[in-house]
């Protein structure tokens, strides 16, 4: 069997990847060349959000467990990467109480982001061990409580995070190109994860826990591994974000941000990579538009009061509407595929090497 036919079969099966990645790259290149700086910023932010939402999809979408603590791992990655890469002098000025050992750290940005991801993964491994043994509803409440714990630690530990105050002076690294490359990698990783044996087992346990056990799936174990993998990517996403925004405080990793991530995932459809992608696109556009509306209305003083929190309110209504009419999200649980690429007979496909 020729290499070409193998490739054709492969691309037929995985046309989803091309359908998501090609428009993302084209739009990125166009904006990079012709876009205004505002548009450039929005697109970079969009790519970073995409990494966060895809990493959320990896665990939550595949296992069906509402993962509240996700943004906490993003925060861990952001702080870790910021502390590792910011110049000692900047840190000693900006974070007066920081542990001397942490002040001395200084490394290039890319390894800092990687280590940030690893720290988030290790933390996930520690807290996930008991958590993944809980039943679904109790587990979700505990994950929510864990987010609060993360937030309290971030706002109180001023030897590390500068407490509730802003941590500033993080070296700028994330340009549109960096964010775009990160998003492309995240798409591939999340897609590969969903199709992998672990992802498949995780999805099976989401559909029916007992049937999953009857085919020999250790539900606790696959959830545990899924949780750690998702936290690893979330931590790296946090690093990429930190080097884009360059100064931030713990409130960036709390409920309202988590809510936006959830909206992005749920509106698009948490069961698929395509859903996460479409949801992120849609919510980003809607959010920017609402922000413009909010600003215009407030500046024009047409109302006797300032409009505030319009974005969140509209997102909430949108999310409820979607959950009522399309519980699976706009895209649903199946990946979008190229309709012209009909899949061949299954036996042939297996023979061609899948």
């Amino acid at each position, binding site marked *: 069997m020729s290499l070409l036919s193998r490739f054709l079969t492969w691309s037929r099966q995985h046309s989803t990847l091309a359908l998501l990645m090609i428009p993302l790259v084209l739009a990125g290149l166009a904006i990079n060349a012709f876009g205004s700086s505002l548009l450039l910023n929005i697109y970079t932010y969009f790519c970073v959000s995409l990494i966060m939402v895809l990493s959320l999809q990896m665990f939550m979408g595949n296992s069906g467990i509402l993962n509240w603590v996700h943004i906490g791992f993003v925060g861990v990655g952001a702080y870790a990467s910021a502390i590792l890469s910011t110049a000692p002098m900047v840190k000693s000025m900006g974070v007066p109480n920081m542990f001397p050992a942490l002040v001395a750290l200084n490394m290039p940005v890319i390894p800092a982001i990687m280590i940030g991801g690893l720290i988030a993964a290790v933390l996930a491994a520690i807290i996930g061990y008991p958590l993944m043994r809980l039943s679904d509803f109790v587990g979700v409440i505990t994950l929510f409580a864990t987010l609060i714990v993360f937030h309290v630690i971030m706002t109180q530990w001023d030897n590390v995070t500068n407490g509730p105050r802003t941590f500033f002076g993080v070296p700028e690294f994330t340009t549109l190109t960096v964010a775009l490359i990160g998003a492309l990698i995240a798409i591939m990783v999340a897609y590969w994860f969903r199709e992998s044996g672990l992802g498949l087992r995780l999805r*099976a346990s989401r559909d029916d826990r007992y049937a999953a056990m009857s085919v020999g799936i250790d539900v606790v174990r696959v959830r545990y591994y899924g949780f750690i993998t998702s936290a690893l990517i979330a931590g790296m996403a946090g690093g990429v974000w930190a080097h884009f925004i360059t100064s931030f405080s713990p409130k960036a990793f709390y409920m309202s941000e988590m809510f936006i991530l959830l909206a992005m995932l749920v509106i698009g459809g948490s069961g698929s990579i395509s859903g996460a992608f479409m949801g992120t696109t849609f919510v980003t556009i809607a959010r920017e538009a609402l922000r413009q509306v909010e600003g215009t209305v407030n500046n024009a003083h047409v109302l006797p009061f300032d409009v505030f929190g319009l974005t969140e309110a509209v997102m909430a209504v949108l999310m409820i509407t979607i959950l009522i009419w399309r519980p699976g999200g706009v895209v649903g649980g199946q990946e979008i595929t190229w309709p012209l690429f009909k899949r061949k007979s299954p036996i042939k496909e297996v023979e061609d090497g899948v």
Partner: protein
Amino acid sequence: MTPMLTVENLSASYGVVRALNDISLEVNEGEMVALLGVNGAGKSTTLKSITGVLRPVKGSIKFLGQEIANGKPEATVKRGLSLVPEGREIFGTLTVEENLRLGAFVSYQRDRYKADLKEMFELFPILEERFTQPGGLLSGGEQQMLAIARALMAHPKLLMLDEPSLGLSPAMTDQIFELIKGLRDRGSTILLVEQNAERALGIVDRAYLLASGEVQYSGTAEEIRRQVDIASVYFGGDDAAPCEVTQ
């Protein structure tokens, strides 16, 4: 010949409610055995104990000479015992292919997977047509076929079917029973749990009739037919669970 599966003096309970009382049964290699009884007789409880979902209060369950009571449910299939759960518990959002692949995961080898798929398509041609569709879109009978195929992908030494005819149309029930008979003729060892005693007795070698958590009758299909008035079991006759109505 030593039996493949031996259940001895098994008792199990849900909290204070005793569901199984000292039941014993055996399944020999190459045999198809039925576990019959009305609702609440203890059929599903027996299966739950065998698969490790429920911890028995006492008694032993031996599979190929190895004690498996108190094992983990997910380890059951690795030992060679596959269960087709009651109510066609397939994975509804996963495609037919993914459902089958999950069945094969216990000992996944691509070459064998390929051969097994071909075999499943011969047994269940409808699955080939529906290969890339989500399992949830299949009809009831097709889902039952998928559930059986998924269990067979693991190459079980013993296949356990929990109420395969539940909720199916009579025509589809016929088809499923025909298929199960076909599996038996291919040499599979099968433990069939059924309410539909009349139909089940038509295809099995031996049967155990459970009532109120105890084995009331056991023997070959012929013997059971001769000894027990099957209809009376379902209408609460003397042979079935003793139940006294006082006015």
